[in-house]
């Protein structure tokens, strides 16, 4: 699903990614842990094209986003990026739009769905996330956990093959991390690949199929965790 080879990225003279190799397969939940400044966020942002890398390659769903230091054309990039969803640490919901409007914005404007189609699938997603009653609320009226679910819903509405989460537990009450873990797990059973970066080791163990640790711009070690028995 996601294949990264020998990826390099620097900010000025500071090398942040120094030859990252990483694979995520279909339906897998991969968690990247590691200290701040280790390059986790930069890696996640690079996969989502929010940062431009200098060397290496990124292949998503068999399509080359970045190969040997060259990016695909703008048109190809737009097509490839539809397969990736990202839930930001700060959610980045559109504050002037209701939850429902946040979710249907991209399906109507990018995928060309009608408002009716998009609303139907958005309500389905909101039902799955347990957020149906907040559909017509504005982001400022939501709690942290609800905002996060709205952000997950917005990404899900584009039906991505790979979902990325940037520190999904950082803005949450500790009691809510189980809920997020459950949402993420049930999505992966539908075949979606998940890439999560976090500091929270307990959360990582709870949710991951595989955990890798990252520091100084490289992937250090890989652990394989058994899926928790209650799943």
């Amino acid at each position: 699903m996601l294949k990264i080879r020998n990826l390099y990225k620097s900010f000025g003279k500071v090398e942040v990614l120094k030859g990252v190799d990483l694979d995520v397969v279909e339906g897998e939940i991969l968690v990247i842990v590691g200290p701040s400044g280790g390059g986790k966020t930069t890696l996640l942002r690079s996969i989502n094209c929010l940062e431009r890398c200098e060397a290496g390659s990124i292949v998503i769903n068999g399509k080359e986003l970045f190969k040997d230091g060259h990016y695909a054309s703008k048109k190809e990039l737009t097509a490839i990026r539809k397969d990736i969803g990202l839930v930001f640490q700060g959610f980045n919901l559109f504050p002037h739009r209701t939850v429902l409007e946040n979710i249907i914005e991209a399906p109507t404007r990018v995928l060309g769905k009608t408002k009716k189609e998009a609303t139907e699938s958005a309500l389905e997603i909101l039902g799955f996330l347990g957020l149906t009653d907040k559909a017509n609320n504005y982001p400022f009226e939501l709690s942290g956990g609800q905002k996060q679910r709205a952000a997950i819903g917005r990404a899900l509405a584009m039906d991505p093959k790979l979902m990325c989460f940037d520190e999904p537990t950082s803005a949450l009450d500790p009691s809510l991390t189980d809920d997020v873990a459950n949402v993420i797990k049930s999505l992966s059973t539908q075949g979606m690949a998940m890439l999560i970066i976090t500091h929270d080791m307990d959360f990582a163990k709870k949710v991951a199929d595989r955990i890798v640790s990252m520091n100084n711009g490289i992937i250090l070690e890989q652990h394989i965790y058994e899926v928790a028995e209650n799943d």
Partner: protein
Amino acid sequence: MTALTDFINYIIAFIPQVLQALVITLQVFGGTLILSLPLGIVVAMCRLSKFKPLSALMNSYILIMRGTPLLLQIIFFYFGFGAIKIPIPRMPAVLLAFVLNYAAYFAEIFRAGISSIDKGQYEGAEVLGLSSKDTFFRIILPQAFKRVLPPVGNEIITLVKDTALVNIVGFNDLMKLGKGACNRDASLVPLIVIGVVYLVIVCVLTAIMNRVEKNYNYYQ
């Protein structure tokens, strides 16, 4: 008692002239507002453009319009077209000066509003695949509008009073009427009357702006 009736009769006789002059004042005000707001948005977008020559051009335009007196600009445009033998009626010529001047101020306000929107909003739109046009017009600009309402309100109120400058090129606006009547009748009453008229206009506009701001309170 007769002094009071004289006073009231004087004001009543003055009112038709005030209404006539008010039309001129409101024409300058309304024309400037309707044209300079959209132009201000366009100038702000050009100023924020990554295409450097365009951005530099807008910078110079803003510098000139904000760096010279509006009064000078009015006189310049009023006589300028005549000097180069382009027959333009005087109202459009004066409006052009006002619009170009106010668009420069509005542009800077909009630029600040647009720049104040968090980078995360652009990134949120980008990862969803929204085009840059949709991102700007559907995500960024509506949020910027809410933030610029108070400074835009300020400019609108200043504009009401700046319209008084058109009396210098012979328009029979409120200011010219007040000044003329003041000289003719050796009385300060006309100035008080037109002062009250300006004040009423500003009160109405303030109420409208408050209402608009309130309408934007549906989100934070």
